[in-house]
């Protein structure tokens, strides 16, 4: 045996000994919060709360986690952390969930990249004693303790119709919807609910004349917006419940003679629409406030880990400055109505 071979063999044997020595099943101890919630309880201090967004370096999640979750965790004296993959893939997220369950994190707050793929590892993390909260994107209900929902489809539909009605004015007129893809589940649900909303007497003067699809591609959305205006010269307003669509439509309108004459609203982010709000193309648009979403998720996780709630329908807890919340069906906690962005408040946001 040469010296090198001996060195290698020794090193390999040492490593194997370490591996084998560790090969006895370890059992995670549950934190045992009992069967029923204790609404009068207080949040435990020192809770380790980690946010696991779809991906890091994403402005939306930087806002929800660092501007919402972090202040909340500091308020109840917990330990805040954010971790996650640099690409939004389910398998990369699984690896991070596994890391968190090994680190003995008390609360994992995750925006799932796939509602099924992360389930196995989340279940394992729960078995190891962690409380699992989903925010932004849910998993299957059995894989988490609670879901903090940013907005209900009804709330989104109502807000959008309200905003377009306000923008168009009391005379009403023709409006159109610029959607994402024709088979996007959430878009279609919102469009149906918007139609229900339009049937109400207070919106009788608004007439939906077309629904077009920009496929969430900037260029296609731009062309569809252009097409709408040449096809419907009397068009008074466009609702685009997708961030790609509203930005493309705003770009088209702001550079055309229709600016200010044809109203635009929908779901968008402040950073992409800031200039169009300032130049008057868009009076107002909606989205939830991601900072509030992160804030509520942190409080929901803390309430669960402290035994104040267990995730059953009807339980209540207080989420700091946001006030009291009630757990809904399937462990859902609803943030509230979408947040309305206008020229007056848009500069308070950066995402």
């Amino acid at each position, binding site marked *: 045996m040469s010296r*090198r071979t001996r060195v290698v063999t020794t*090193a390999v044997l040492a490593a194997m000994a370490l591996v084998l020595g*560790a090969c006895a*099943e370890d059992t995670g101890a549950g934190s045992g919060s009992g069967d029923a919630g204790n609404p009068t309880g207080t949040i435990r201090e020192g809770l380790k709360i980690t946010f696991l967004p779809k991906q890091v370096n994403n402005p939306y999640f930087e806002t929800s986690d660092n501007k919402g979750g972090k202040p909340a965790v500091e308020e109840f004296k917990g330990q805040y952390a954010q971790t996650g993959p*640099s*690409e939004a893939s389910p398998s990369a997220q699984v690896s*991070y969930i596994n*890391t968190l369950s090994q*680190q003995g994190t008390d609360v994992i707050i995750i925006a799932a990249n796939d509602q099924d793929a992360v389930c196995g590892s989340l279940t394992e993390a729960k078995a190891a004693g962690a409380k699992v909260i989903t925010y932004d994107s849910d998993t299957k209900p059995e894989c988490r303790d609670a879901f903090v929902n940013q907005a209900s489809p009804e709330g989104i539909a109502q807000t959008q119709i309200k905003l377009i009605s306000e923008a168009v004015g009391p005379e009403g007129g023709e409006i159109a919807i610029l959607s994402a893809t024709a088979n996007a589940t959430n878009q279609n649900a919102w469009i149906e609910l918007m139609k229900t909303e339009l049937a109400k007497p207070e919106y009788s003067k608004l007439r939906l004349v077309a629904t077009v699809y920009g496929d969430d591609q900037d260029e296609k959305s731009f062309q569809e917006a252009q097409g709408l205006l040449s096809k419907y010269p009397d068009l008074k307003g466009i609702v685009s419940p997708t961030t790609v669509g509203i930005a493309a439509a705003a770009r088209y309108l702001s550079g055309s003679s229709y600016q200010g004459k044809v109203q635009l609203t929908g779901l968008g982010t402040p950073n992409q629409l800031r200039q169009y709000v300032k130049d008057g193309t868009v009076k107002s648009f909606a989205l939830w406030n991601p900072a509030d979403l992160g804030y509520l998720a942190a409080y929901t996780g803390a309430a669960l880990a402290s035994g104040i709630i267990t995730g059953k329908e009807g339980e209540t807890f207080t989420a700091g400055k946001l006030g009291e919340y009630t757990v809904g069906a399937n462990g859902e906690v609803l943030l509230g109505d979408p947040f309305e962005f206008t020229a007056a408040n848009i500069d308070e946001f950066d995402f």
Partner: protein
Amino acid sequence: MAPDTQAVPAGTTGPRWPLPRRLLGSWDAVLLIALAAVVIVAAASVEGVGSPRFYRFVALEAIPIALIALPMTLVVITGEIDLSVASTVGLTCSVLGQLWHLGVTSLPLLIGLSLLLGAVLGAVNGVFVTVFGLPSLAVTIGTLALYRGLAYVVLGDRAVADYPPAWTRNAVAPIPGTVVPWFVLVLAALAVAFGVLLYATPVGRSLYAMGNNAEAATFSGIAVLRTKFWLFVATGAMAALAGVFWTFRFASARADNATGLELAVVAAVLLGGVSIFGGRGGLVGVLAAVALLVVLRNALQLASVPANTLTIVTGTLLILSVVGPNLVRATRERWRRRRPTTTVEGTPS
């Protein structure tokens, strides 16, 4: 370095050296020592690294990479490459999910059809490379896009996830009494099979000849094209096996499954000491490299190193993987030149 390190570069040796010598070419040794060092240092300094759960997670993560790295090693040794493997995984996942969705409920049939699909996808690569004589780099970049596109045609942006819980549980189930996933045994068996093929058969040894000089290999009677064709088929089938594992491990068949996995595989193969130009390398180094990459990544994650830093570490390792083996080789060359070869050839140690 011990004087006997002037052995002929790993893998290029013919049958002259006894098997243990060839298995422990010096880059392999560097990798195994690095692996042991990372394990020891991490276990001592990062909480949780020594735990059984850590090794379970590491094993689960390493399995798909290692499965594909086995045939990829052979492909790269012959001087070719297959970049379409991750897309093959994705397409296999999509078809598997769709078949289940359409009512194929026999697990053996699903696995069989998946492997067959993988073999066909590999054969397509093989035909383009061997029959039409196109460079494998170009061909497989094409099929990388093509197979991923087809995966989206099959499944769109849907996910198929309603498999029987027993299937998904069994995919990650440990060997009774341990924490080691049973699929590690499948991997081990396949590693042995590929090892025997590479080190103990004339075909295996001919792969090095092809990688060094395909023309010369052809003239010396080696069926270069036929062998390469079957290597691509094997790569496709192994990628499909990884796809089956992937689907049931994550309980989710999606068109974007395993996106980017080809980079992890190629990184492991290169870090494992296989020359990108062909003709050099072996399975021991590659498997050590897979373990090293996955252990390092998981240990750093446990140490709460942010994803951005992690990417930098991985990138640096990749650079090292190309520079390292060459540096080791160059150093040995210099050693050899400095001391005129009075070394006893053929009588190691």
